[in-house]
């Protein structure tokens, strides 16, 4: 397992101090890592650095969308050939991410999107399932993409796709925005089964239902053009 220096994992992290270095250590033997510490109040940045990641620090919290765009820009500037977006809370599986990269390369795809509904979920709360299923229906209708999952943070983008996609939604609405840009740019994408694990740690931090209202509000008001 040699390290692939053209492969960059982009991890947006907000107050993930207890978990981030473990997540980074899981990735670092295989690929380069940039953690965007999004104005965390804890030691997320130092932990990520200690784990072997490059760290870009947002001085104030701007949200996961903004942080991912920062990380993608950083990775592209470092010469990334492929970019993986990866969660900081340990919900994603590195081996599956690497499978997705291999598939992206082998099939010459622009994007490979993780799907927990093609794959599996561990301990996913019912309410979360409902909200995401609703998001899937909504995304299918608005983008015309034939998806089985939406708002899945595990994605692989080719360098070209990562350059074309520009995230303008600072907060969680970026997940819908990325999909609508994939549709508009007519990128060549596939879904890939992944396992999303809802650990006690990730559940304590994860998205509350109330946040889906904020996502709709963000989509309604749009983003800077």
């Amino acid at each position, binding site marked *: 397992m040699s390290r692939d*220096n053209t492969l960059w994992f982009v991890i947006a992290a907000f107050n993930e101090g207890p978990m981030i270095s473990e997540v980074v250590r899981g990735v670092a033997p295989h690929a*380069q890592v*940039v953690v*965007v510490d999004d*104005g965390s109040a804890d030691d997320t*940045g130092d932990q990520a*650095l*200690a*784990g*072997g*990641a*490059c*760290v*870009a*620090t*947002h*001085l*104030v919290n*701007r949200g996961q969308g*903004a942080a991912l*765009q*920062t990380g993608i*820009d*950083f990775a592209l*500037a*470092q*010469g990334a050939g492929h970019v993986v977006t990866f969660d900081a809370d340990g919900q994603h599986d590195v081996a599956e991410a690497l499978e997705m990269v291999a598939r992206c390369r082998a099939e010459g795809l622009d994007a490979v999107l993780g799907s927990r509904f093609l794959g599996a979920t561990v301990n996913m709360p019912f309410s979360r399932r409902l909200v995401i299923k609703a998001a899937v229906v909504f995304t299918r209708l608005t983008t015309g993409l034939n998806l089985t999952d939406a708002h899945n943070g595990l994605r692989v983008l080719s360098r070209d796709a990562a350059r074309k996609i520009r995230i*303008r939604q*600072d907060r969680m609405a970026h997940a819908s925005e990325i999909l609508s840009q994939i549709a508009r740019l007519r990128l060549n994408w596939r879904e890939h089964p992944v396992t999303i694990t809802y650990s006690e740690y990730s559940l304590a931090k994860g998205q509350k239902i109330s946040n889906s209202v904020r996502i709709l509000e963000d989509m309604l*008001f749009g*983003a*800077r053009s």
Partner: protein
Amino acid sequence: MIVSLVATGLFLFVLFVAAVRKFTFFGLKVSVMLFAAAGIYFVWNPDQMTRLAQLVGVGRGADLITYATTVILFLTVVGAIIRERRSGDVLTLLVRRLAIQQARFPERPKAGPGSRG
């Protein structure tokens, strides 16, 4: 009487500010000035307000004022939200630029070339 004088003073102030200040578009300036002028007129001629209200099918002048105030407040809030979001976007661009400029790299003993790009 005192209330009328205070209201007149406020409307005069709005009129003055609107006359002097720059607006994003001229129509808005004219609207605000007309609004303030109408305000002064109706403060001293409340019966006319009621006549106007009945003209547009609202019972009393006071009701019309309530509706108008609600609409204006709503538009003001929406405008404020839009402005707040714009300045948030500017802040994001700044924060992101700084983050990339000041990125930290891990210690990498005998790292291969390219790790600092």
